[in-house]
C-alpha cells in the first residue's frame, strides 16, 4: 500500500515536473525600422509563431530565433508557451508541410542575433537581458493585463543610476501598473529585477499617461536597463 502511494506520487511528480527551471532573463530587440517602442506579450507570441507578420502599427516584422541554449528556452517558455525547441520545430514543420509558412531563421548566439537584427529591416529577435545591443532597439514588453489595450500617450524614460551603469549592473525590471480612468498611473508594484533599478523605473513610469478608459485597469510591463548602451 505504501509502495503504491509512493509510486503514485512519483508518477504525479514526473508528469507535472517542468523541463527545467528557467533562469535566463530575456529582452526583445528590433531593427531601427520598427517604429514602436513597446510590444504586447500577445504580439510577441503572434509574431514569433508567424500568426501575424506585422505589429499593431502596421510595421512588417520578421522573427529570428536562437538555436539552442537557456535564452532560447526561456523565451519559448515565457512568451510562446512552447515546452521545448522540439515543440517549436514541430509547430513550424506543420506550417511548412501544409503550405502555410516557412521555417524561421535561427542563429547560434546573442551576438549573431544582434548583428542580424541590426542589418535586417523589420527583423525582431531576442537575446539575454545582459547582452549589449548597440544600435538595435530594445522593446518594452507589456503583459496582457486588462489594461493591455490602453495606448501610452506620454512616456518618460527612467534614469539609469551612473554607479550601476559603471559597474555594468543592468537587467530587466518588471512592473505592475494600476492605470486610472483618466490615464494616470495610480499605483506601481515592482515585480522583479534589481530593486534600485526598480525604484528608478517606478519613478519614471509614475509620470506616464495612457488613454482614458471607463474603468481602472491593471497591466504589467518589462523595462530593460542596458549597461552597454
Amino acid at each position, binding site marked *: 500500500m505504501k509502495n503504491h502511494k509512493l509510486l503514485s506520487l512519483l508518477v504525479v511528480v514526473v508528469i507535472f515536473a517542468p523541463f527545467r527551471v528557467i533562469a535566463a532573463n530575456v529582452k526583445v530587440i528590433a531593427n531601427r525600422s520598427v517604429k514602436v517602442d513597446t510590444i504586447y506579450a500577445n504580439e510577441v507570441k503572434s509574431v514569433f509563431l508567424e500568426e501575424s*507578420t506585422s505589429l499593431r502599427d502596421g510595421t512588417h516584422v520578421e522573427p529570428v530565433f536562437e538555436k539552442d541554449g537557456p535564452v532560447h528556452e526561456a523565451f519559448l517558455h515565457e512568451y510562446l*508557451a512552447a515546452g*521545448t525547441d522540439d*515543440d517549436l520545430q514541430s509547430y513550424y*514543420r506543420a506550417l511548412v*508541410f501544409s*503550405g*502555410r509558412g516557412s521555417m524561421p531563421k535561427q542563429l547560434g548566439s546573442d551576438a549573431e542575433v544582434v548583428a542580424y537584427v541590426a542589418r535586417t529591416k523589420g527583423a525582431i529577435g531576442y537575446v539575454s537581458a545582459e547582452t549589449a545591443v548597440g544600435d538595435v532597439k530594445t522593446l518594452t514588453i507589456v503583459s496582457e493585463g486588462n489594461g493591455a489595450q490602453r495606448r501610452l500617450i506620454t512616456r518618460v524614460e527612467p534614469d539609469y543610476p551612473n554607479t550601476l551603469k559603471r559597474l555594468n549592473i543592468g537587467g530587466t525590471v518588471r512592473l505592475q501598473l494600476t492605470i486610472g480612468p483618466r490615464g494616470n498611473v495610480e499605483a506601481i508594484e515592482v515585480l522583479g529585477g534589481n530593486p534600485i533599478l526598480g525604484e528608478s523605473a517606478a519613478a519614471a513610469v509614475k509620470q506616464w499617461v495612457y488613454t482614458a478608459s471607463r474603468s481602472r485597469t491593471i497591466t504589467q510591463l518589462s523595462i530593460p536597463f542596458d549597461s552597454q548602451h
Partner: protein
Amino acid sequence: MHKRILSLVFALWCFQAGQFALMAQEFKLLDRTVQVHGFLSQGFVYTNDNNWLTMNTSQGSAAFTDFGVNMSSQVTDKFRIGAQGYDRNLGQLGQYHPSLDWAVADYRLKSWFGVRGGKVKTTLGLYNDTQGEDFLRTFALLPQSVYPTDLRDATISHLGADMYGEISFRHRLGVLAYTAYAGHRNDSIYSGYPYYLSSFGADIKSYGGLQYGGDLRWSTPLKGLLIGASRMNEDITGKGSAINPFDPGAGLVPYSESSKADWTNQFYGEYVVGRFRIDSEYRRYWRNQELFSGTSESFADIRGWYVSGAYRICKRLQIGSYYSHYTISNIVGGALSAFYPPATDTTIPANHDYDKVITGRVDLNKFWNVKVEGHFMNGYGSGPYPNGFYTQVNASGFAPNTNALVLKTSLNF
C-alpha cells in the same frame, strides 16, 4: 509503365533535392530566399489476423512508404508561394504514382484576413492537413476512426481558395482563428474508395467534386487549451464502369454515383501542458448517394472519435496512447436493396472498429525518428465505406479481432 518511370524520376529528384537541402535548406532565386524541405517514411506492419490497410500484413508487410518534397518562398512581406510533390505506396494504394500535394499562392493582407489559392490543404480538425507527415506527432498512425489513412485523398486538399485570419480578443479572451474554403476535390484512382469499389467489379475513371466548408478554432485564455469545430460539405460524382449487379454475365455497364447530401462535422480539443498533450476529436460523416444513375440510393452514417495522450519523457523519447472508436451504419434503397440488407447494428464487428493503441517514439536526432506502435482492434467496419479492412485482401473473410504491430521510421529536413 511510363508512370513507374515517372515515379522513379520523382523519387530520384526527391533524393537529389534532399541531399541538396540537407546541405543547405535554402537558396537564393531572383534575390528571393527559397526554402526546400522534405520527408521520407518507411513502415512495416504485422497483424496476427486480417490483412489491414490493403497490405498483406498477416505475413508482415513493408509496403508502407511515403515521401514528399516542397519548395516555398516569401516573395514580398505579404505574399508567399510554394508547392509540394507527394508520393506513396500503401499496399494496393498509391502505387508510387506521384501527385501534386499542394501548390499555393498566399496573400496575407492583415493578421485577421488573408487569402490563398491553388491546390490548398483542407482545414478539417486538428490534423487533416498534416496527416501524411507522421514525424510531426508521437503516433505512427493517427486514430483511424477520424483520419483513415487509406482515405487520405477524400479530405486532404481542394483546388480552389481559402479565406483565413486570426482575431485577438480584448480582455485576455484568447485568439479565434477562422478558415473558409471552397474548391474541387479530386481523388486519385489509386486511393481507398476506388479500390473499395473495385471489390464490386467497378472500374472508377474519375472521382471528385465540389468541396466547401469552414473551421473555427479558439485558443482559449487557459494556456495550452485549444478548442474548435469544422464543417465540410461536398457534392461528389464518381464515374466508371461496373459489372451489372442484376445480370453479372452481361458484362460491364456504365457506373455512376453522385451526392444527394454529403457533409462532415468535426469537433475537437487539444490541451498541452509541459510535456503532456491530450487530444480529442469527434467526426460525423453523413453520406447520401444516388447509385447507378439514380436507380438506387445509399445512406451511410459514419461516426468516429478518439482520445489520445502523449508524454515526452526526455528529449529523445516519447510515449503515447489512444482509444479510437469507429461505427458505420448503412441503408440501401431502390433496386440494389435486394442485395444489401440494412446494416444498422453498430455493435457487430462488421459495423465498428474499436482500436486501443500504445506507442513509443525515439528521436535518433533532430531529423530521424523511429516508432513502435501496438494496435488492439475489435471489429473491422468493412463497409459500405472503407476503414482499413478490404475484402480483396481478406478473401477468406474477417476475424473479429486484429492485433497489429507497426514499426515506422521517418526522415525529414
